[in-house]
């Protein structure tokens, strides 16, 4: 499983990161080095072991499905790069 510049471009797009084309080959080398090192995990026999996603084995605690906060559009928009009325504003998405 080796990563080339084309794969870097693909992952970068999945992650919504603009990586200039001239940086992709070097990055591919760095990522491969890290993944080669991680491949040591293949030595471990994990047959019969369930994946551990969280150390709190109990299910995630729920809460009452009620509105317990809100009504503060000014706070929520305070850090928005652009907003109009009570909405976040983004570049046009419908042609």
């Amino acid at each position, binding site marked *: 499983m080796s990563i080339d510049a084309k794969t870097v471009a693909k992952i970068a797009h999945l992650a*919504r990161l603009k990586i200039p084309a001239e940086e992709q080959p070097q990055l591919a080398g760095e990522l491969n080095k890290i993944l080669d090192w*991680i491949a040591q*995990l293949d030595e471990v026999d*994990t047959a019969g072991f369930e994946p*551990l996603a969280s150390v709190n084995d109990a299910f995630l605690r729920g*809460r009452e499905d009620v509105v317990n906060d809100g009504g503060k559009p000014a706070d929520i928009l305070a850090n*928005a790069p652009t907003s109009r009325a009570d909405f976040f504003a983004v*570049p046009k998405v419908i042609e």
Partner: protein
Amino acid sequence: MSLTDLSMAEALTGLAAKKFSAAELAEAHIKAMGKAQALNAFITETSELALKQAKESDARRAKTSAGAMDGIPIAVKDLFCTKGVRTTAASHILDNFVPAYESTVTQKLFDAGCVMLGKTNLDEFAMGSSDITSHFGPVISPWSGADPAGAKRKLVPGGSSGGSAVAVAARLAIAATGTDTGGSIRQPASFTGIVGMKPTYGRCSRWGIVAFASSLDQAGPMTRTVGDAALMLRVISGFDEKDSTSVDQPVPDFTSAIGASIKGLKIGIPREYRMDGMPPEIEALWQKGAAMLREAGAEIIEISLPHTKYSLAVYYIIAPAEASSNLARYDGVRYGRRVAGGNLIEMYENTRGQGFGKEVQRRILIGTYALSAGYYDAYYLKAQKVRRCVRNDFNEAFKKCDAILTPTAPSTAFAIGEKQDDPIQMYLNDVFTVPVNLAGLPGISVPAGLGADGLPLGLQLIGRAFDEMTLFKAASALEKAAGFNHKPPFTG
């Protein structure tokens, strides 16, 4: 004794006896911060807020209603959201972000009467072991020399809570908050000669802390004594319904563990932590630490943690995978920096391409790859299975012992510019601390001695989940026996 040299316990005694006021204590630390600008420990200084809070503390105390940390000047890692005070995570993408809310941990500190001196520098999004990846420039350790900025080798403070470690070591703050995902409290504590405590996962609320890897992140105290860490942990612990992973467990008075007998306590020494190429001085200090605990009445036994060598590889899949998901929120829409693009997707890509630094981008890419179709089982699920093996190792070990003693880091502090060419060399800094996060256990680094280069070295104690009491008992005994009283060559 100078006001900036006091431990938290000493400062609280002095405040109670009216030997000095909280305002005087704050002013002494603000003055020290002014002298220590070259260390770059703070991203944002909040001197005015500190003086206002200090005066309020004095007023409270005059009415005899002082909180557990009333009037104590602290530094806060710039990863904790603070209402009305810029919170950057040391990233360009958040360099203009001013939260409209307070993190649970900082709220608890303010409720206890703390005075905030400022927000400390860190590795960008807490991803690093050196503090060199900050958008705001590297932090310099006060151990670099009497003139740290002019030193030939400018030493790193460790990371990611390096600014907090430096603030405490250089006497700019009495205590500081840190966060620890793979060693980010304990390793900088070891590098700077202070105490750093990572509590059990779920002990402190993560609400309002900028998320890195949610299944591993924990907040904790950074102080100059074990007793101060115990006091501060009690203040910041506790169940919080706003964090779904917060655990509803009673919070004992950890300070009652300080100075308690460790007679009969079983301390495990994991044979797998004797790594190839480990510097002899680290091995020697480790053995000395074990001897000190034996002298204090503990029983030392050898234990085995067979999956130790795989912990770092597990971590470097799980942490980036969780980070790639957590950092998806920085899209230039709701907060943070935006860089324009021809359409919405280009705007996202430009914003994130320019807003995140190189190491953060590298980890997002690794995480995205590990979670992508076709590689999920091979990388992410495999790592989670080995994570269970690592935790099972600890479960087995704790059938035989009550706490585990290891070195905190594989070396003393290195210099800015060293270990930077190869990310894996940098990752190895956390070889002894990462397994503790994978298993969700509490760990504490106690300064135990100096290396041949005259730089501090810490020893780590690891405890059972939610048994910080035993950990503080052992750490207090180790602190007493080691008698570490070295100050860095530069203080503020």
